[in-house]
């Protein structure tokens, strides 16, 4: 795009008034820096990843002879293919629970709190934990869930359980609990935002016409909050599918997601194989995001 502009600039007569050139190409001049940046540092690396996934992997290096050997290794291996299935399973579970746990809170903040200041205060209260480093927040779940952790201490203190629950830490469950808590806010925010925008007279009209609370929710509130749900789902999906830190910290490296495999493979210099996993992850993301964007037009909602 930049070269395009240059050629236009050179082709234009020198005597041409500068303002008309500015006016004619204003968009492109404004867009050029951003677009060039994104092409160079976003599109090129992703294409490179696809390309390298077909390279030949030797013990410590990669060479640019094309092969599909790395791809065959991935689909033939129980471990790697299993990681794909596990990633999908954990993603769906986390997505479901962030929605289930987050929606009532969003409903309360967006619909039942009429005071704008209180709304902001509640939303800010939800965001405050985010000012602690992501990795430290993940680590803080260890003393929560451990055998002598806070959850067990509290439950035992209340007399609900006699023996400490041991499955809480270093299992798939702990990964799911950790992820739900870390990402649920990304679901609450967009939904609360959409709910707060609903014209209240709409709901009053429905009530005057004798609609029950459930009918109002089902036919007015929920459909109008759907764009928020989709945006939240996109946020959560993007983050959970690319996760690896939570899984390695809370499962004691027992739960391996696609992200974990990439990290391990890069660590042992298996670049071509890491690229294969990367391409598969990209494909999964693309399908998920396209499907979600089908439901709602992101550009129109802004």
């Amino acid at each position, binding site marked *: 795009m930049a070269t395009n502009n240059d050629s236009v600039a050179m082709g234009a007569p020198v005597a041409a008034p500068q303002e008309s050139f500015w006016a004619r190409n204003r968009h492109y001049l404004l867009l050029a820096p*951003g677009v060039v940046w994104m092409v160079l540092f976003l599109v090129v690396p992703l294409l*490179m990843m696809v390309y390298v996934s077909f390279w030949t992997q030797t013990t410590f290096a990669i060479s640019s002879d094309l092969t599909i050997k790395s791809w065959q290794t991935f689909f033939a291996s129980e471990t790697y293919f299993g990681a794909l299935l596990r990633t999908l399973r954990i993603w769906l579970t986390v997505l479901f629970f962030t929605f289930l746990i987050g929606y009532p809170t969003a409903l309360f903040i967006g619909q039942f709190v009429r005071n704008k200041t209180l709304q902001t205060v509640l939303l800010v209260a939800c965001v405050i934990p985010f000012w602690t480093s992501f*990795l430290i927040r993940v*680590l803080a779940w*260890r*003393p929560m869930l451990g055998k002598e952790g*806070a959850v067990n201490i509290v439950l035992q203190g209340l007399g609900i359980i006699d023996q400490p629950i041991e499955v809480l830490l270093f299992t798939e469950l702990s990964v799911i609990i950790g992820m739900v808590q870390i990402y649920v806010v990304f679901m609450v925010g967009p939904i609360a935002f959409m709910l707060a925008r609903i014209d209240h007279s709409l709901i009053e009209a429905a009530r005057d016409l004798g609609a029950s*609370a459930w009918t109002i929710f089902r036919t007015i509130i929920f459909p109008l909050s759907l764009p928020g749900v989709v945006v939240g789902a996109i946020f959560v999906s993007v983050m959970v599918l690319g996760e690896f830190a939570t899984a390695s910290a809370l499962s004691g490296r027992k739960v391996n997601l696609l*992200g974990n495999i990439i990290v391990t493979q890069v660590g042992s210099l298996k670049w071509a194989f890491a690229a294969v996993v990367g391409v598969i*992850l990209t494909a999964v993301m693309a399908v998920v995001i396209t499907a979600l964007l089908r439901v709602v037009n992101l550009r129109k909602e802004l």
Partner: protein
Amino acid sequence: MYELKTLRIGLAIYTALFIGFLYGPFIVMGILSFQNGPDGGPQFPIIEWSTFWYQHVLGFAPPSRVAPLPIGEALTRSLTLAFATMVVSTVLGTLTAQAFRTKFKGSGVVFYLVVLGMMVPGVLLGLGMALVADQMGVDRNWWSTAFVLHVVYTYPFAFLVMLAIFNRFDKSIEEAAWALGVPPGKTFRKVTFPIIFPGVLSAMLFALTLSYDEFPRTLFTGGSDVTMPIAIYGTFAVEIHPNLFAFGVLTTLFSFALLTVYGILMGLTVRRARASGIQEDI
């Protein structure tokens, strides 16, 4: 009506529990940061209350078997990187959003190209960038390969914030300035910028926090000089100690301070805008 009241109370209680769920680990972290040191571990019970780990983080504690966090260097790097990312992504975001104020061909493609930056998982971008750098023989450093990826990540946020601001912006004010013969550059400085300033501030805050805490993109591209999140990730592999929790509490307090400054700046702009509005009325 009665039904609705019960529902409201029920949801209020639920929301309180929900916020408790969000703060749980945070509170546990706060408690455990006062664990006895250097022998106490990051778990219950508290052997003895002490501020040892805070001293440890700040470098006042006597040397022990627990290696100190590389606060000085890593934190400086992280803050420098976050600051540079903030400036560049806010400028790019504002420029692009400015271009989007008028319709043009291919705007959909550009929109999704930019938004893609925040949607692609960091680990993928980090991997791709590392491969590109390797093949081109470029060294991987926090201020080069990691920096460009940080901007790829934060620039879409800045862009979306600015787009939302421009969508609620009355164009006729600018047109008035142009009609009075003010050149476009000066119009932007004197008219447009003061109006969009709160948006710019939010975009900057977004970029700063995201970049400061950014970790998967930096992991493969940051090279051997670690940033703060990478230093913390390094402790995952070894044993973790309560000094991380003390550090977490300290950084959270720091963020509070930063946000207070942001709040004050916002308040001042709003007040100034109101004051000038009154003047115009007179």
